[in-house]
């Protein structure tokens, strides 16, 4: 029986596992957390960008398709140990509740991303001022109740969103764009407006990258329907005055410094390679690209091909990506595994 291992139980990994099992392969799905669903489950996303799909509904469909499939062997709370290459694949050690060695012919790495931790960029005062939160924390807040100020529990009268936190910044070591935060912030602006009809909502941006169809679906909609104001200029510093965060920056459209107080500040923190990326790259002998993500070596042919035969990548593990794109790459990786196994049989 042909066995394939999928590492990572987020949208990309779940899709890859589901498809591989549908094609008749036995799949071992390894997930380090105790639950499946990746970031969608971790932050309890209720509404997904860009189509405002229900997060729980999407998550339920993805997880149940995998959980109910007898060909998929789920190993949650587990990590990858020693990896040994053999003539027809890999001997992979799984560390967890049931430690053991699996013999697999191909591996799909779908280990995703981690959010940039804004504590590393001290100018935003994150971790110091209670009313400065991340976009993921706003999602968690909206999943469990109304939007409030963490310091007082009051309903905020003004909310600021700061773009490009931990992205496009040599000082923090990330020179790339995280691709989704502009659109996610616009989506959050629209959601927050529904809760807070009278609040001032302001986005501080360098440029707005709601590319493709998101331009009118998210960016324009946030402005036109939700009355969100966009101020051009990256915020240089957050301080606190009378218990409220004060944003200091330059409004580059009028060329002058400003100070602006808000009740709540949301940092659109970008994406970084998942914690285990470097270790897994070494274990499976694949290359990483200059930003630290897994290298897609032949992206013009197939998004999931890496520098090592038999090792494939899917989702945000190879760079910042939307849920939609991650799911698509899960499918792509499954197809690439089939092609690979087929070529091994016939050659």
């Amino acid at each position: 029986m042909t066995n394939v291992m999928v590492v990572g139980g987020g949208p990309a990994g779940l899709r890859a596992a589901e498809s591989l099992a549908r094609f008749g392969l036995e799949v071992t799905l390894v997930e380090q957390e105790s639950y499946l669903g990746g970031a969608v489950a971790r932050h309890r996303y209720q509404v997904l960008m860009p189509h405002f799909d229900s997060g729980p509904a999407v998550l339920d469909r993805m997880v149940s398709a995998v959980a109910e499939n007898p060909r998929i062997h789920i190993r949650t709370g587990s990590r990858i140990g020693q990896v040994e290459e053999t003539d027809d694949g890999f001997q992979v050690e799984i560390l967890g509740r049931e430690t053991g060695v699996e013999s697999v012919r191909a591996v799909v790495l779908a280990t995703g991303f981690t959010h940039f931790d804004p504590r590393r960029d001290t100018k935003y005062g994150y971790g110091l001022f209670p009313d400065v939160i991340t976009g993921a924390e706003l999602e968690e807040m909206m999943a469990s109740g109304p939007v409030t100020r963490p310091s007082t529990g009051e309903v905020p009268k003004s909310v600021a969103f700061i773009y490009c936190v931990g992205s496009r910044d040599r000082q923090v070591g990330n020179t790339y764009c995280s691709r989704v935060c502009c659109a996610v912030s616009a989506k959050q602006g629209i959601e927050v407006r529904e809760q807070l009809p009278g609040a001032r909502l302001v986005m501080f941006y360098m440029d707005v990258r709601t590319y493709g169809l998101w331009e009118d679906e998210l960016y324009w909609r946030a402005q036109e329907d939700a009355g969100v104001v966009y101020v051009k200029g990256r915020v240089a510093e957050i301080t606190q005055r009378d218990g409220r965060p004060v944003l200091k920056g330059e409004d580059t459209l009028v060329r002058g410094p400003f100070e602006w107080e808000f009740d709540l500040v949301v940092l659109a923190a970008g994406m970084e390679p998942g914690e285990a990326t470097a270790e897994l790259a070494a274990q499976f002998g694949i290359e990483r690209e200059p930003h630290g993500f897994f290298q897609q070596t032949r992206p013009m042919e197939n998004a999931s091909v890496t520098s090592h035969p038999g090792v494939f990548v899917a989702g945000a593990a190879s760079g910042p990506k939307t849920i939609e794109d991650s799911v698509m790459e899960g499918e792509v990786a499954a197809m690439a595994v089939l092609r690979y196994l087929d070529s091994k049989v016939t050659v």
Partner: protein
Amino acid sequence: MPKGAGIIERSLVQDDHILEHENLVMDGIDVSGRWNTMLKSRVHADRDLDAWDTVRQNLVATSIDNCIQCGMCTAGCTVAHEVEGFNPRQFIYWVRTGRTEELKNQADVVWRCVGCYICTHHCPKEVNTAEVIETIGQWLRTVVPERMDRAFHVNHQVYRNHLISRGRLNLPLLQTTFLRALGRQNELFAPEMKKTALKMVGDGRVLKTLRMGRPHRWRKNRQVLGSEA
């Protein structure tokens, strides 16, 4: 003593950023002259979003929220290429970010729009820019009438009276009334004006103007117009 004389490296500081009172007593202590010298901060912190709230509620100006600051309006603007400070994109941004002080300083400039509507036709976001700018002007007229040119107020009054009394615009009469009200009747006898007048007599436009009656059912419309502030 000249302004800011006590400042070391005085040449680095702009005149209008120096605050200095000749005579000032604070808490009983005389701090006249250079003792009270302060530098004005460039930081913009006093935000007033009333203008935005007012403008976006006006039926013809709700599209102000569509603006993405691309600058297409100012790029094509007839007036911006001639009048310094006339910048529709900037006016919209000032309103939306609560920079009403800057706006008030340009109260007179905002009204220089000639109504060509190129901005409205160019706008990729379907902002009705011409009417948004006029709405901003209307807001300025109510909050800082003293900062508008006298000609603006006179023109406004003459135009309105004209409409109420006659029901339609009679341009030669409008022109003469306007100049007389400003005490500029001499301009009526300028050579260019004479030439135009003779031409209009010649081609019959003057006669036509004199025969012009009031519009149908004007009395009813006048009541509406007259009741507006």
